[in-house]
């Protein structure tokens, strides 16, 4: 009996050991981003930023080997839910990182957080999840959208601009953008124009702007819309006459197409490639070397998301088993953000600085946004007070 039992026990013991080692060594992270269709550039930036961070950390987060599983949400909420369920149920991921767009976030939020898995958004930051619907399993490394919208409004007010023309797409984020601007700007609004989402030719609106003769224009036209608008704005000869203020309209994802047309235009952001921190210099150089493109906020916020996981797992000694401990460790934001100062508010959205950034051409001929002026310091979003988490 004894002879039989010993090897069995040894095998059992060994099995026990290997299984715990297995649980410790592969950390599975699902990345969900828009990787097809015209907005694919944004998703690629997000994915690249995250992968670069894992590579820079030696393929490990918090001491554990990392397996990244990338899924394309196709910017379709229903498809995103299917893909996220596959990540949760088939791949049994430990974290979900994504998405780019707010409407996708609304769709995947419940499936992920209800499964008890931590969801880290490196871009989308809607007001509802910052306020009443905030969740212990949800963290944001970007910003609450309203904050970015407010930057240009505050700047316009402080700079004493008198008459501003506003333009945005006719949907919720577009109306939020204009409301965000107006909450800080008290001067005259020349006109507010809402265009259909996805409009490409702005000839009619540009003629209106020319006749209204404002001091400045505030634009929220993300992605392809912004590329077209900026080019046509320049072609119409308006760029030399008015100040161009914007949100999500000129950044490193659109500048390769806008190029000289966007020179000198302003935007509101929480970061720019030339932000002077040692970590950021290293990140920008590394990203450009690896992907031959200037990183935009999507890439840097995804990079920060990986640093956030790394820092938290260091506190929990690599374990994701105790959810309460994991959430507490994430909340501590135990990492040095590329943007410098960073801490989480009670609603798990960042408290951070915001800048007015300006499009510039670098010595090597590439385009990037550069910090012009700090507009908000340690800014927290206004929705945190509605969040039950304290």
């Amino acid at each position: 009996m004894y002879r039989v039992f010993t090897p069995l026990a040894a095998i059992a013991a060994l099995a026990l050991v290997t299984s715990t080692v297995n649980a410790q060594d592969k950390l599975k992270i699902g990345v969900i981003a828009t990787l097809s269709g015209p907005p694919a550039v944004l998703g690629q930036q997000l994915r690249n930023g995250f992968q670069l961070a894992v590579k820079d950390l030696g393929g490990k987060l918090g001491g554990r080997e990392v397996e990244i599983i990338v899924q394309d949400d196709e910017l379709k909420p229903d498809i995103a839910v299917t893909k996220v369920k596959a990540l949760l149920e088939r791949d049994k991921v430990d974290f979900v990182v994504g998405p780019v767009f707010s409407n996708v976030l609304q769709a995947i939020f419940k499936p992920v957080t209800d499964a008890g898995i931590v969801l880290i958004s490196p871009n989308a930051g809607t007001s509802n999840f910052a306020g009443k619907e905030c969740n212990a399993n949800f963290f944001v490394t970007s910003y609450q959208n309203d904050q970015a919208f407010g930057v240009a409004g505050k700047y316009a007010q402080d700079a004493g601009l008198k008459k501003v023309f506003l333009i945005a797409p006719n949907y919720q984020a577009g109306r939020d953008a204009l409301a965000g601007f107006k909450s800080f700007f008290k001067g005259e609004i020349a006109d507010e124009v809402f265009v259909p989402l996805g409009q490409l030719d702005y000839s009619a609106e540009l003629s209106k702007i020319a006749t209204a003769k404002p001091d400045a224009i505030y634009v929220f036209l993300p992605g392809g819309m912004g590329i077209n608008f900026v080019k046509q704005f320049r072609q119409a000869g308006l760029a030399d006459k008015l100040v161009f203020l914007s949100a999500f309209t000129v950044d490193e994802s659109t500048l390769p197409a806008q190029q000289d047309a966007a020179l000198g235009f302003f935007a509101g952001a929480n970061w720019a490639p030339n932000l002077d921190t040692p970590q950021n210099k290293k990140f920008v150089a590394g990203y450009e070397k690896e992907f031959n493109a200037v990183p935009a906020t999507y890439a840097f916020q995804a990079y920060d998301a990986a640093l956030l996981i790394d820092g938290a797992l260091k506190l929990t000694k690599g374990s994701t088993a105790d959810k309460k401990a994991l959430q507490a460790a994430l909340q501590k934001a135990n990492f040095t953000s590329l943007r410098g100062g960073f801490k989480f508010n009670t609603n798990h959205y960042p408290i951070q600085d915001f800048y007015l950034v300006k499009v510039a051409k670098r010595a090597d001929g590439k385009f990037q946004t550069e910090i012009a002026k700090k507009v908000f310091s340690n800014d927290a979003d206004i929705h945190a007070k509605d969040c039950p988490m304290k």
Partner: protein
Amino acid sequence: MSMSLLIVQILNGLQLGVLLFLIAAGLTLVFGVMNFINLAHGVQYMLGAYLAVMFYGMTGSSLLALVFALLAALAFGLFLEFVVFRHLYERDHLDQVIATFGIILFLNQAVKYIWGAAPLSLPIPEYFSGSIVLLPGLTYPIWRLVIIASGLAIALLLYVLVSRTRLGMLVRAGANNAPMVSALGVDIRRLFMIVFGFGTMLAGFAGIMIAPILSVEPGMGDTILILAFVVIVIGGIGSIRGAFIAALLIGLADTLGRSFSVDILRLVMAPSPARTVGPAIASMLIYLMMALVLYFRPTGLFPPKGR
């Protein structure tokens, strides 16, 4: 002030109109003559733009880019006709829609694979950049005037081709009764190929002309295709004249609707709801027009005779 704004908006409407015409002309010919629904027509528009960007990058000359891109667009259109479309002429419309839709998916993905997902841009040719003063205080980009002029020139060329030449006569006859034309000893396959190639080239030309204004990106042909179908339905399928008039109507209605709907609504409602309702009505306007035309003239404004 309001008068000069109106003039500029009419020019804007004309520019959208001629652009739509360039795309719709090929579509209506292919649909009318060959009874072939080519959803992939919008892809040719996208390819025209991409090819122009590529050749501009290689040669550095706008003129050479235009010539090479046109030739390449034509060659590619004929290649598609030879490899795929030729086998679909006898099939029913559903097969054609599915096959050509497949081509859209395939080519959109292929474009992304070759040129990347990031939007590209093409500069305006040096001698047409900038804007000119139309009226005191109102300037207009020269390139948009060039688009209008070249579109009108092509419309005139098409008019002469279709109504004054033997080829045009065959095309008109084909639109009326293709089997009869074939029975009279005309090589209908060859005719189809010429019509198809020409239509493809026009769509490519539209893509090249618009590339300096819009961003060149995968899927850019999909939205314009829908408008082009609206144009040919309103104009009457197979009719170049119908396509021309319908394209201008749509271009003007869309542009003027977008610019003045809010102001008009403000006369009857409060400014804030007018701002939200106006754009919604403006974007419905062309479809309302199509519904009205279809109700009163189910075959379109200028259907080819004998159909």
